């Protein structure tokens, strides 16, 4: 089709048919403000309800103003983005939005990273001419997420993520007119809904309406308690994103600075969740091989494919929507929980501390981890294996509160023994990483040969659903990968229908995997932020001297000294779990158009 020619603020623009006015304007350096619009290009995620009306522009010959996000370019259009009519309309609409928003910016969790605040500043709002009644809702506090709907501006981004991308169906627009609000059905609390705590609603919320439950004060209190030993583990995706909170370029690895910061904060031991990721591979990889061998031996009771179980939101999702398939996922606990279980047994013994006096904390890119560590099955006599899970954002806030100049920190190394990890563990942070790590180990155990090629490019990428066949020395192993729960649902449905022939499937709930987690610094709709983090993760893998989990010497030591072998009785007790039917309401998610 022919290209389309138009002018925007008198500048000629040529675009492909189907281009929106907003994107066309970007081509000529005109940045039209938006609020509800969200487009993560590399992930094929778009929210375009045309609801906020901040991005309106004047189009010659048109009766009313046009939303530039939702209006397509047409031949010969003359578009103006900054006439008095447009500016007045935009400011008035912004004043209206602010008139129904609390004025508590100074103490709001989102202050400084709030899209609404920034847009109001950019538009030069200095007075609200249309004051009136404001909406009031009760605060909804779940184990992971706080909903303060007084701050909701009805951009519907969370609803799109929850329904279209995740197909979780916890959040919907309900009520009409001024009473409209995004909420679980019947305005129930999130805890009673189908919510998986993936936190993607929080990740895209432009205001302080959706935030994480803040555990920083509990950490500060624990660190100040002389009777407690406080240890910390950091998930692989954190190091690839934490720097953003201090103004560093997305994709900057800050592993060393992060360790220094944690030491300055006073943690007694700074460990790495990557250590537990290596442990996960030992358990999950062995489980895969066991199930595979049984299956190949003709034992039809053995269910394949095996599904990864590292992602707590994913676990919540299948317990909610596919409880009848609870024997398919691996029984391996997530790395966070494996770490906690080993820390409060093996490591506690090693340093001679009672588990009650050992506080295990984790820094996670994730909000579902907050819920996961509170699960009853991960407690011994009421004492949780992991006491507190902080998000990347909370860690950044803690560092700032503690007067630590992050940028000038030197690099430090993790403590031993639970700070040592392989490259395979690092890539747990991205989609495709867990299964690649598993392949590296399973291949060598199964074939008895050394891998010549350690990086499996065919398992990498940002496509929502990917598959590849890996040659295990003559045995083709079919691997499926999905990130985003909507994509996971699609794969699960095909397993149910018997139309897929995968041996192993990796699933991560968040776009891009943990690097795009709900606890990460906000991407503000720039998908390049997530892809940059992915690059950083693979960079760290390449730089690691050890790149296979089974070669981690401290893992070997752990098995020698404590666990015995993978899938041993002790392993089963400490490193594996079981799943529950948690299905609440059966929600049919309408197919998106």
């Amino acid at each position, binding site marked *: 089709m022919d290209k389309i020619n138009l002018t925007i603020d008198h500048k000629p623009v040529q675009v492909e048919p189907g281009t929106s006015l907003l994107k066309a304007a970007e081509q000529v350096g005109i940045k039209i403000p938006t609020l509800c619009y969200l487009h993560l290009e590399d992930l094929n995620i778009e929210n375009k309800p045309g609801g906020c009306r901040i991005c309106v522009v004047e189009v010659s010959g048109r009766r*009313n103003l046009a939303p530039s996000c939702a209006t397509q370019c047409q031949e010969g259009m003359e578009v103006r983005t900054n006439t008095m009519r447009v500016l007045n309309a935009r400011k008035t609409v912004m004043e209206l939005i602010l008139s*129904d928003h609390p004025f508590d910016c100074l103490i709001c969790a989102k202050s400084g990273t709030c899209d609404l605040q920034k847009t109001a500043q950019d538009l030069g709002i200095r007075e609200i001419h249309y004051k*009136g009644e404001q909406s009031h809702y009760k605060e909804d506090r779940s184990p992971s997420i706080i909903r303060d709907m007084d701050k909701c501006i009805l951009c519907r981004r969370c609803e799109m993520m929850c329904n279209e991308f995740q197909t979780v169906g916890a959040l919907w627009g309900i009520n009409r007119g001024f009473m409209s609000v995004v909420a679980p059905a019947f305005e129930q609390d999130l805890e009673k809904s189908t919510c998986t705590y993936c936190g993607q609603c929080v990740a895209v919320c432009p205001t302080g309406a959706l935030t994480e439950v803040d555990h920083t004060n509990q950490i500060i209190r624990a660190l100040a308690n002389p009777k407690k030993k406080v240890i910390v583990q950091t998930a692989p995706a954190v190091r690839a994103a934490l720097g953003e909170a201090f103004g560093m370029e997305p994709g900057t690895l800050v592993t060393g600075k992060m360790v220094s910061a944690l030491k300055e904060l006073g943690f007694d031991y700074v460990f790495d969740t990557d250590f537990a990721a290596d442990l996960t591979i030992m358990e999950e990889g062995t489980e895969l091989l066991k199930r595979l061998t049984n299956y190949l031996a003709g034992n039809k009771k053995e269910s394949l494919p095996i599904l990864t179980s590292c992602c707590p939101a994913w676990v919540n999702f299948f317990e909610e929507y596919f409880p009848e398939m609870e024997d398919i996922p691996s029984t391996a606990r997530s790395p966070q929980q494996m770490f906690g279980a080993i820390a409060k047994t093996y490591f506690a013994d090693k340093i001679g501390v009672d588990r009650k006096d050992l506080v295990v904390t984790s820094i996670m890119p994730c909000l579902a981890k907050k819920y996961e560590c509170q699960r009853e099955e991960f407690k011994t006599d009421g004492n949780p294996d992991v006491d507190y899970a902080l998000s990347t954002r909370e860690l950044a806030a803690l560092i700032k509160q503690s007067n630590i100049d992050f940028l000038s920190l030197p690099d430090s190394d993790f403590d031993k023994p639970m700070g040592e990890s392989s490259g395979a563990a690092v890539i747990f942070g991205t989609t495709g990483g867990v299964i690649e790590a598993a392949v590296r180990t399973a291949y060598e155990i199964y074939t008895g040969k050394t891998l010549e090629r350690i990086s499996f490019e065919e398992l990498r990428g940002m496509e929502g659903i990917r598959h590849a066949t890996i040659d295990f020395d003559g045995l083709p192993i079919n691997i499926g990968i999905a990130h985003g729960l909507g994509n996971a649902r699609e794969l699960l449905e095909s397993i149910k229908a018997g139309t897929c022939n995968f041996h192993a499937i990796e699933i991560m709930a968040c776009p891009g995997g943990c690097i795009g987690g709900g606890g990460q610094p906000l991407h503000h709709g720039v998908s390049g932020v997530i892809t940059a983090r992915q690059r950083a993760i693979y960079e760290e893998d390449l730089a690691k001297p050890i790149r296979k989990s089974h070669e981690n010497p401290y893992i070997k030591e752990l098995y020698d000294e404590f666990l015995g072998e993978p899938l041993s009785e002790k392993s089963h007790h400490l490193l594996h779990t079981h799943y529950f039917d948690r299905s609440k309401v059966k929600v049919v998610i309408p197919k998106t158009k």
Partner: protein
Amino acid sequence: MHILVCGGTGCKSSNSDLLVSTLRNELLENGLDKEVQVVLTGCFGFCEQGPIVKVLPDNIFYVGVKPEDAPEIIAEHIIKGRTLQRLLYEDPTTKEKIQNAKGMNFYKKQLRIALRNCGFIDPERIEESIARDGYAALGKVLTELTPEETVQIIKQSGLRGRGGGGFSTGLKWEITAKSQADQKYVVCNADEGDPGAFMDRSILEGDPHTVLESMAINGYCTGADKGLIYIRAEYPLAIARLKIAIGQAREYGLLGKDILGTGFNFDIDLRYGAGAFVCGEETALIHSMEGERGEPTFKPPFPSEQGYMGKPTNVNNVETYANIPPIILQGAAWFSSIGTEKSKGTKVFALAGKVNNVGLVEVPMGTTLREVIYEIGGGIKGNKKFKAVQTGGPSGGCLTEKHLDIPIDYDNLIACGSMMGSGGMIIVDEDDCMVSMAKYYLDFTVEESCGKCSPCRIGNKRLYEILETITKGKGTIEDLDRLRNLSDVIKDTSLCGLGQTSPNPVLSTLDNFMEEYEAHVLHHKCPAGQCRDLMTYWIDTENCVGCTACARVCPVSAITGERKEVHLIDAALCIKCGACMEKCKFNAVYVS
């Protein structure tokens, strides 16, 4: 002999059901039940005078008939052939008793195309519809015309959408016909929601078959084999009659497979709306039918290209459909000879408010407001002074004395700052406060906004709040500027037709009744005496005889005074309930 009894919702609520059964009992007792049939019809339109009874073939039109009148009607009229003078309509000016509807001013200027069968047939019997050419147009189309030829006829007729938008119906059909898809849909928008409007309800209650027939014709033209009627669940009678009609049409082979042996398949189902005004907007209507939240989405894509379930969907309003069969049977030239240059045919209006003849009227486009209000409507109630007429419901604007002689059509109404809308027409007189009227409509819009876009969700709420402040006497002159700017921005930026028109009542009252607004904000007075907060009750010292009746009736003890002495109202305590004024026999209580 036939006795037709109006079974529209209005007459039904005035007990026309009991009237019918009483008439039937009387006939049975007199052994006349075989010779005389009592038929419950659709709305006659003259709701002010309901329940209405018409006796055929004598063509005698009785008004205000009660169940207890039934024995006399049978004994006098049916048996003895004597017209009951007391039940005839009396012309208010000439005081003459009128027997035939054609002689009444209410009907004289009307031309009934869409309402042609309402009040003539039993809507629950397909035979009566067929007897008045029902399904003849469908037969003609299927056997004599190609879909393209049919669309051309509709285009040439100049018919425009009667739901409010006024888009060319033929063009809409053509676009849907040209859309390529494996499945298409025909939808009837029966989500009538304007306050005071009941055009569509009356057509569906009085002549459901015409809508079914038209939808089938539409399906033939556009290539759809599935029709859906989106009707609000608050229209139980219309729903019941549609269900009966669909069943009968299927039985007669006029819906379903191989209609009239032509190989054309078409069937219709009902979809119920929960009564959201915004679901009259076609994209919101479609989402609601899909089981999603009733919210509009931006166009394009238009439903004609991507509608219900993502398939091309032709959405037309009930009244639009009711015009199709006559156009097919009598030709495009006949239809386009009626009306004005750009608005052809007739329009049904629901006449309401301070007018003598409240009811449903159908007039040719180009009829003036004066003709509708004074000739058909019989003028203003209680000989009060006409102040304005609101057309287009909450989306429209008010028109004043100076607009009375403008011929009504789509374009003229828009030029005057109002719109046709679906045809609501509410007349207000000198006792009505225009600020309060604007507030009333905004109250409706605030309630009915879907909440999707910020200007409509929050803006209308703020407009309402400002109007509320003004009617409470706390407004300022700056509020009027704020009203205007906010109205302009809401119109300019809202997502759908609801928000794009919701400030019209504010803007048109600001334009036409600025002095009323100024009286409220500058002098804290409501010229119409309707805004309670701006009224003060006084006792006239000349007239008060000190009977103490007012003091005894006052619920808040705001009136003091000794027996046989002049009484006093304490304005600080007075809640302006008006009880004292009602009680006083000496005209001593007044308001200013």
